[in-house]
């Protein structure tokens, strides 16, 4: 297997203005490294504010101020000049969370799907209409729906338009940013099945951002768990869900209610709220809420260390 995406020491920071001339930096993603293999799905999970979306969008340089190294299919993304970056973005496309606000209400569905090809110029002009028709069929929309406006579609259909648009430039990597979180459960199942079918048929690679561990369990091959801008655990699907090692991952999994009566895990409640991200603790960032904390945790940041094959944990007690 070859890595399609290699991210080394990625940091994404945002300036926070504090009075005259004073700026402090908020590190939404702090020194994060990971790889995504071609044809697989890496899920990044975490709670709001953990930096999961920023990490993924930071890879495509869509947010903030990124530092580190991002290699996507041989292209050094963080070093690209604006014009080269624009063209390189054909290789990475995003499916957004909100199917209502992520489509231009004044464009017809066909124009929305065509737009990335027009702006990046990936196909000769005379072939684009045929490509749009092909994309409509791939995502399960009918040809006569090409002429409709976004408000004439249901939420699930709109998300299909968003998926068709993301596929338009034949991207190497698709970032699914909470792609099914806004949908009703029955529609969510339709979209998840579509995403998996497209992955099988077209050999797509997904960077799948979600807070829903049930969905992640179903979609991913590998999972990175983030807490306050750091990856605290990285593992393949079976290891992460069957034998989580980091106290935060354990707590997160135990918090999910399930219909499986056999899955009666003892709930590990995490007390309190996360610390102030502008002023993160010096040691392990989870230390203030961890049941297993000891002095050493508070003084030094634990590195992400391999504890088994394909399983890394950032905890000195793992």
């Amino acid at each position: 297997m070859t890595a399609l995406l290699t991210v080394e020491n990625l940091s994404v920071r945002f300036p926070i203005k504090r009075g005259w001339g004073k700026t402090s930096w908020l590190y939404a993603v702090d020194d994060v490294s990971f790889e995504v293999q071609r044809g697989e799905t890496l899920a990044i999970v975490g709670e709001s504010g953990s930096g999961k979306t920023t990490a993924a969008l930071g890879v495509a340089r869509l947010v903030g101020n990124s530092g580190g190294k991002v290699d996507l299919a041989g292209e050094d993304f963080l070093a690209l000049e604006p014009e080269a970056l624009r063209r390189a973005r054909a290789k990475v496309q995003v499916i957004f969370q909100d199917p209502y606000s992520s489509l231009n209400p004044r464009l017809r569905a066909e124009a929305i799907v065509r737009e990335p090809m027009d702006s990046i110029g990936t196909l000769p002009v005379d072939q684009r209409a045929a490509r749009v028709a092909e994309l409509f069929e791939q995502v399960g929309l009918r040809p006569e729906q090409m002429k409709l406006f976004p408000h004439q579609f249901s939420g699930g259909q709109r998300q299909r338009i968003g998926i068709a648009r993301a596929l338009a430039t034949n991207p190497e990597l698709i970032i699914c940013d909470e792609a099914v979180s806004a949908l009703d459960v029955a529609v969510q199942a339709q979209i998840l099945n579509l995403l998996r079918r497209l992955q099988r048929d077209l050999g797509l690679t997904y960077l799948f951002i979600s807070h829903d561990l049930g969905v992640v369990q179903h979609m991913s091959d590998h999972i990175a768990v983030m807490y306050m801008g750091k990856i605290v655990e990285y593992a393949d699907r079976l290891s992460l869900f069957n034998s989580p090692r980091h106290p935060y991952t354990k707590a997160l999994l135990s918090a999910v209610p399930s219909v499986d009566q056999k899955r009666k895990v003892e709930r590990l409640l995490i007390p309190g709220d996360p610390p102030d991200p502008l002023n993160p603790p010096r040691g392990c960032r989870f230390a203030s809420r961890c049941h297993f904390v000891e002095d050493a945790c508070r003084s030094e940041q634990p590195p992400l260390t391999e504890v088994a094959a394909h399983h890394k944990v950032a905890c000195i007690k793992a």
Partner: protein
Amino acid sequence: MTEPLLKIENLRIELALRSGQAPVIDDLSLELRPGETLSFVGESGCGKSMTALAIMGLLPEKVGSIAGGRILFDGRDMAQMNDAQLRSIRGNEISMIFQEPMTSLNPVYTVGEQIAEVLRRHKGMSKQAAWARAIELLDAVRIPNAKSRVSDYPHQMSGGQRQRVMIAIALACAPKILIADEPTTALDVTVQAQIFDLLRDLGRETGTAIILITHDMGAVSEMADRMVVMYAGRKAEDGPVAPVISHPRHPYTKGLISCVPHLLAKLTEQRPDLTEVPGIVPALASFGADACLFASRCDMADDKCRSSRPPEVAFGEQHSACWKADQL
């Protein structure tokens, strides 16, 4: 069997549309017993929140109205009450918390003032007594350092803390019924676990009956005693949670359970596609039809399903409105 606390009989709520009246709630009957947790489940637009609003007497004026049936609370019919009578019950004997803890609190008053307001209005407490009780309530909903946090404004609190404040307000008058409308949908899963634990403990301590509105079957199975599955304004199925989830007698219930990827006790390599419930909830205009409204999305449907509304069939304590319930 104990006398039900709340009894809804043949409730019909009509909504004014441009094309006429549509029944958003159509012939709904259910019971809530003292101290139990009852869950309303279904997709958006199935009438879960509408039922809750009707119980609270909060249907949108001039748009929604009760067209038939009774809502009996303590033997009195709430559907016939005037505003003043409803006001004395709302927030006092029946209270409600909402999905959005960000927008349900008033941003220009401290949380203490907002809790005290309820106590002064319904219990006639003095300013000092209400304030002192507000601190006790914040403490009861496990907000650390309640004495100083009571003077905080909502924006100074996290989402989970705001929802705790909402719960404190709702429980201030020790209501007999607490309606929780998707109380954790806007919150992180670890915060959701904290809120569920809190609701469960408070329910046990105070004997408050809870109506939990949710679309999450996992939450239902952990929180509720009984459940009502709603589809297109009608009751599809109801019964005790364990048998309904292990053996649903309505294809819609079955679909709702199997279309969601649940966390399992032991994960394996197998990953079959999710069961799809094709299509979406029908448009309001078709809600009154004499047919099974789920028929268009059901793979078992036949002509009978499309031409007459199925009656409720009982399987012990479980009831299903499906012509083919006995085949499931």
